């Protein structure tokens, strides 16, 4: 995590599909310096989320996208993408309903 600043407060928006595993929170404020740290902090707060966000290998699951601003973090620097105070991360899982 070289080059990352101090942890700051960022908001993670949790979609309805995952709220049951996050204490029914729609938004969760966490302390983090990077996208990966923010998600880890979220999972530490709500352990039931882990299996929904991560593969056993620790990789973000391929049917879960995380956006910082309007960009998919995979297009940025992935989990090491730095975050700034006040940033909002958006979790967008795959849903199939119709």
């Amino acid at each position: 995590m070289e080059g990352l600043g101090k942890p700051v407060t960022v908001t993670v928006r949790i979609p309805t599909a995952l709220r049951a595993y996050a204490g029914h929170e729609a938004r969760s404020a966490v302390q983090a310096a990077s996208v990966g740290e923010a998600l880890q902090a979220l999972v530490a707060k709500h352990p039931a989320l882990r299996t929904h966000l991560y593969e056993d290998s620790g990789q973000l699951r391929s049917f879960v996208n995380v956006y910082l601003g309007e960009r998919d973090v995979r297009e940025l620097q992935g989990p090491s993408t730095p975050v700034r105070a006040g940033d909002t991360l958006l979790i967008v899982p795959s849903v199939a309903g119709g």
Partner: protein
Amino acid sequence: MSPAWRAGDITAKLSNREIAHYSRHLILPEVGLKGQEKLKDARVLLVGTGGLGAPAAQYLAAAGVGTLGLVDFDVVDESNLHRQILFTKDDVGKSKAQTAAARLRAMNPHIDVQVHETRFEASNAHGILRDYDMILDGTDNFPTRYLANDVAVLQGKPNVYASIFRFEGQASVFDARRGPCYRCLYAKPPPPGLVPSCAEGGVLGVLPGIMGSIQAAEAIKLIVGRGEPLIGKLLLFDALEMEFTKLRLAKNPDCPLCGPRATIKELIDYEEFCGIRGEEEEVPEGIPAMDARALEARLARKDVLLVDVREPHEAEIARIPGGKLVPLHELAARAAELPQTEDIVLYCRSGVRSAKALQFLQTLGFKRVWNLDGGILAWSDEVDPSVPKY
């Protein structure tokens, strides 16, 4: 796509009756006579005529899309009526595609509605799509969504996408010639059981109406060639917050379907790709089970502990008397509340979640646990019909 508009052939194509019907389109400069003729020339295949497909079909029919294809093998169910407003109470049990086609023809006699009363499958998808310019994906399951995407990419046609869950929707236009495809958005589907379906998770009735209407708007924009389609963008809608969010969606350079080193050149086995056989999730084999009548006898003898692993709001709809409510996602934290020295029967709506709960308790060393076969639905069928089915 891009149906050819023939110069010098302007008024010949729309009859006076059609001009009267489409008058409010014709006076929009962005549509006009030219755009309306493009709509008449256009052929849109709607895969699924339910929550998303039905409202999309209604607007596309009203707008004068000349050929609409409806793919659906299903019949109208009573539980569809809170959102699929094309159908009425009298349609319950009838073919969705046939019923929808009759309504659409009545709405607009100037269009051609084709019915494909079949499942959309790898074996027939190419043949069905061949006669259309684009797909509108209104399906309700992952295998058919990947199939709709793949066949559209392989035939070089756009796929107007939307998907819903509870209070939230997603929409995009996948056109691999100009942007990303569905596989660029989500390379792989979730493993079965990790993401609940609308049948399990519920859906706000008006939500598919909103998202299906967005699909219709995008399809019309593609046809008339106006505006900015949702190519390379993902639109999210949250009905609770009443918020739209537009995100950027990039083409995945490693996409196995539309990337430069694509490895998928033909349709695959989508059920296998999604890790499922059949749409409904099933109870794994070897789970100790008890049927509803046996449970009734055991409850009368008061020698069994009944545990309801559903959510509290489901227990408000219907419950088996005497059960203890421990929602599945709380089970790990609350397992200590359950005695290992008594017989325990677990139940949910249909028996799938309670089977998962049972397997989890087995890993903790529980030996005296059974799964209510068929869940509370079976209880309503076999023991107490006054318990409503939901």
